[in-house]
């Protein structure tokens, strides 16, 4: 078995230490470790984190391989420092049966860049009417524990209640895409000052907040846990904060783009800024950052949503919703949370690795960087500054809102169980 | 219109000269038009319109009749539209009885390349069918680029292309004068 010595890395942003990987395991963490027989990675000034875990990724396979495949998506994940991603269920066909989730699981295994944990649909065909075979998906080789109709809201209160109850039998969790459908008919962007001016259909904050309020109360009532996808408003933060204070078992995620971008960008009518939930206001952005810092929001999840060029190279109304995010997530988090002093690197490890792994029960991921743990690691150069160049993306799609934008930090190395998937910024 | 420093410009006609010249032109019109019964004066904005009004007043003195006077903006008919940003339009005001079957006398301040008059003839064509069209100008400075000549000329002023001719009228400029000056830089497309 090969040995790798990571020399002088700031583990979770702490004092420089050496980390020795032996095979698929972290063998030793200390100072002045011997390098005999090991490949040495000089990590002076770099931050060593546990491999990142994304609870919300759209890998598009099966069905939309023109925008992403499991292979290209996991390569993008490795590029961004991820060792585990959860693949959303809104594929074609929908991942609502054991057969489809096993296919995605198997493709992930074959890719070798990143562990892929399929998410199962809550309802058949994401239609919100009839529960999918949640137990069968859990018992399949894929071992699904996270269920979501993401892209659509489980808006029927009875179906949502049943799903929350049903997954308790095997410790599953329902991840809700909170969007009241009637309040968001024809919605094109955040409803507010900018939508009024631009004449684009409004997506009001209350459409998200009303569903979150209902679901935390349902979770409390039936004694289940619930996870809220891509929380985007200041009001949602308050509701989750209230629910947690009441002891309700709720977790929540925020996307990198909702930590940075506002609906003012929509004035350009550039569809690269079209996303669901939509970009909100500066007040929301600041509330989300604060909530991520104080733990009200538990994790950062990318909602990596690849779309082919033609689906974004058109008028706003015709454009698809979504942004790619795996390869820029850590930079955006560094920019918005670390460089602003809101979060330490240890905090980043918690929000982007430990906690998402815990919520999704990703075995072997989100572990401490210490001897005996699986060698799922990410090395970051926080001093790097440079413009985002989508041409260099490993993802098959380029629909990033950050093109040309100067962002800090760069993932230089990623190890998946001791195997380097990214070395000096190059995929292996 | 040329822009130049009037300090270096030399007056070639002063106020009284201009008044005299217009009186002469008025008499010539009456003579050539055999009483000016059917004359319509159309000035070309900006200064041609004031000259047309002054001529009309003089014609009324001579003939004792009201002389129809109007304005004809030629901007939309210019052949150099594509060479400049679009200009603000001036007023076209055709007297009530129109120009059909009448003798239209176009009035302008300076006759130069002839292109303005060419545009004016095109514009007239879209407005009606005069019996005949004549041209009265205060100054003819030569350098024609089209086969056009004036029927009534206040003053023939031989010039070089390096010179500028500027007409000032009290209605627009506060005083009456024709100024000859030197062009400071590269030749501009004066009419």
């Amino acid at each position, binding site marked *: 078995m090969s040995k790798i010595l990571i020399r002088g890395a700031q583990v979770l942003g702490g004092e420089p230490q050496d980390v020795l990987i032996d095979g698929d395991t972290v063998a030793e963490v200390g100072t002045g470790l011997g390098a005999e027989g090991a490949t040495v990675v000089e990590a002076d000034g770099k931050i060593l984190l546990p491999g990142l875990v994304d609870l919300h990724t759209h890998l598009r396979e099966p069905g939309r391989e023109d925008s992403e495949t499991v292979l290209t998506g996991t390569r993008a994940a490795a590029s961004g420092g991820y060792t585990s991603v959860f693949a959303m269920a809104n594929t074609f066909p929908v991942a609502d049966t054991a057969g489809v989730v096993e296919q995605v699981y198997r493709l992930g295994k074959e890719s070798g860049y990143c562990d892929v944990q399929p998410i199962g649909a809550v309802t058949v065909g994401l239609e919100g009417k009839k529960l999918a075979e949640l137990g069968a998906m859990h018992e399949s080789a894929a071992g699904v524990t996270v269920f979501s109709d993401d892209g659509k809201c489980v808006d029927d209160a009875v179906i949502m209640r049943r799903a929350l109850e049903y997954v308790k039998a095997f410790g599953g969790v329902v991840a809700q895409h909170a969007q009241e459908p009637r309040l968001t008919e024809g919605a094109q962007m955040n409803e507010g000052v900018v939508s009024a001016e631009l004449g684009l259909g409004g997506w009001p904050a209350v459409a998200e907040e009303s569903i979150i309020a209902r679901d935390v109360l349902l979770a409390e009532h039936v004694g289940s846990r619930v996870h809220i996808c891509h929380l985007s408003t200041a009001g949602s933060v308050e509701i989750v904060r209230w629910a947690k204070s009441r002891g309700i078992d709720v977790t929540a995620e925020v996307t990198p783009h909702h930590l940075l971008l506002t609906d003012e960008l929509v004035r350009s*009518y550039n569809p690269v800024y079209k996303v669901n939930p939509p970009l909100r206001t500066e007040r929301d*952005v600041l509330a989300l950052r604060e909530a991520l810092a104080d733990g009200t929001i538990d994790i950062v999840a990318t909602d990596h949503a690849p779309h082919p060029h033609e689906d974004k190279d058109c*008028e706003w109304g015709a454009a698809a919703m979504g942004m790619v995010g795996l390869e820029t997530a850590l930079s955006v988090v560094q920019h918005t949370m670390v460089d602003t002093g809101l979060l330490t690197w240890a905090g980043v490890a918690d929000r982007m690795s430990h906690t998402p792994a815990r919520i999704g029960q990703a075995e072997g991921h989100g572990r401490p960087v210490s001897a005996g743990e699986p060698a799922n690691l990410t090395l970051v150069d926080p001093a790097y500054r440079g413009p985002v160049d989508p041409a260099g993306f490993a993802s098959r799609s380029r629909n990033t809102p950050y093109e040309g934008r100067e962002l800090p930090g760069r993932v230089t190395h990623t190890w998946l169980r001791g195997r380097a998937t990214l070395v000096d910024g190059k995929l292996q | 219109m040329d822009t130049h420093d009037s300090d270096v410009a030399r007056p070639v006609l002063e106020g009284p000269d201009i008044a005299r010249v217009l009186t002469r032109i008025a008499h010539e019109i009456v003579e050539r038009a055999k009483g000016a019964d059917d004359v319509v004066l159309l000035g070309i904005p900006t200064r041609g319109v004031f000259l047309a009004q002054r001529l009309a007043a003089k014609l009324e003195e001579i003939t004792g009749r009201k002389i129809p006077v109007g304005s004809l903006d030629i901007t*939309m008919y210019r052949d150099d539209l594509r060479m400049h940003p679009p200009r*603000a*339009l001036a007023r076209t005001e055709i007297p009530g009885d129109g120009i059909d079957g009448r003798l239209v006398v176009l009035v302008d301040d300076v006759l130069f390349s002839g292109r303005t008059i060419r545009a004016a003839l095109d514009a007239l064509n*879209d*407005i009606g069918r005069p019996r005949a069209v004549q041209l009265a100008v205060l100054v003819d400075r030569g350098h024609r680029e089209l086969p056009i000549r004036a029927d009534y000329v206040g003053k023939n002023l031989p010039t070089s292309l390096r010179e500028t001719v500027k007409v000032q009228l009290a209605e627009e400029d506060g005083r009456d004068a024709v100024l000859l000056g030197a062009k400071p830089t590269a030749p501009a497309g004066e009419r």
Partner: protein
Amino acid sequence: MMRHLISAADLTRDDAVLILDTAEEMARVADRPIKKLPTLRGRTVVNLFFEDSTRTRISFEAAEKRLSADVINFTAKGSSVSKGESLKDTAQTLEAMGVDAVVIRHGASGAPYTLANSGWIDAAVINAGDGTHQHPTQALLDAFTMRRRLVGRDAGLGQDLAGKRVTVVGDILHSRVARSNVDLLHTLGADVTLVAPPTLVPVGVEHWPCEVSYDLDRVLPKSDAVMMLRVQRERMNAAFFPTEREYSRRYGLDGERMARMPEHAIVMHPGPMVRGMEITAEVADSDRCTVVEQVANGVSIRMAVLYLLLGGNEPAVTHTRPATERPAHTAFPDEEK
């Protein structure tokens, strides 16, 4: 420099007055035996209509033809567009044909902006109505109609609408006419009041440069012009108001209400009118109603816009918004450095 006319908000006061003054001269062409000017000879203008609007299209077409432009009409229905061709492909096709200007009507807000800024096409883009966003030539023709009626044809030259009180009544939420008018009338110095049931006023309207009222009767006596907007009956089904009858009673303009307006005040409507809904036949047919004038003025305004954008080697109207994307200065709320 302004190459395109996308939004009424892009016009400065001087630009708008120049367009109105130019339109005043263009209007005189309509009184001549030959209603044609040679100004745009050899220029090709495409009327690219992704939405049905015969009125707007023929108004532009009349304006283009009076200026001697070559006109190509391209309507989406029955064309390749209805077979799934994208705006981009259509634009590139037109570009390959060498068109000088595209007059675009599109159901999606922002489509003209995208067309003008995408790099798909070099032609000047004139917005003939996009979604619920803007309809700048409508606002210009409305302002032109107001200036003629409230200030005077000749007296109005060079003037704006300072101090004029304009009331816009109806479905503000879904109206590009309302948005364009608020922007332009504000630029021209008028005081605008929007009147509608609260359901038909957009969230965020408090940032618009106008007043909002829910009480038509209170506003009418203080109005120099009252613009009635069309209210589509189908809005009733989306619960914007309970019944057509209740809407008419509270927000419709009838003879009795019109009598509360000042003597000189005019009634405007962008058309097509829904008689019996927002306006009664009595009002629509009265001589205070400028609907027919607005149609005639539309041709003059569109001639003026076409002349000022296409008549020279470069446009005569300045543009406050750069042709490229706005800087994303608001994207980083924490970056005050």
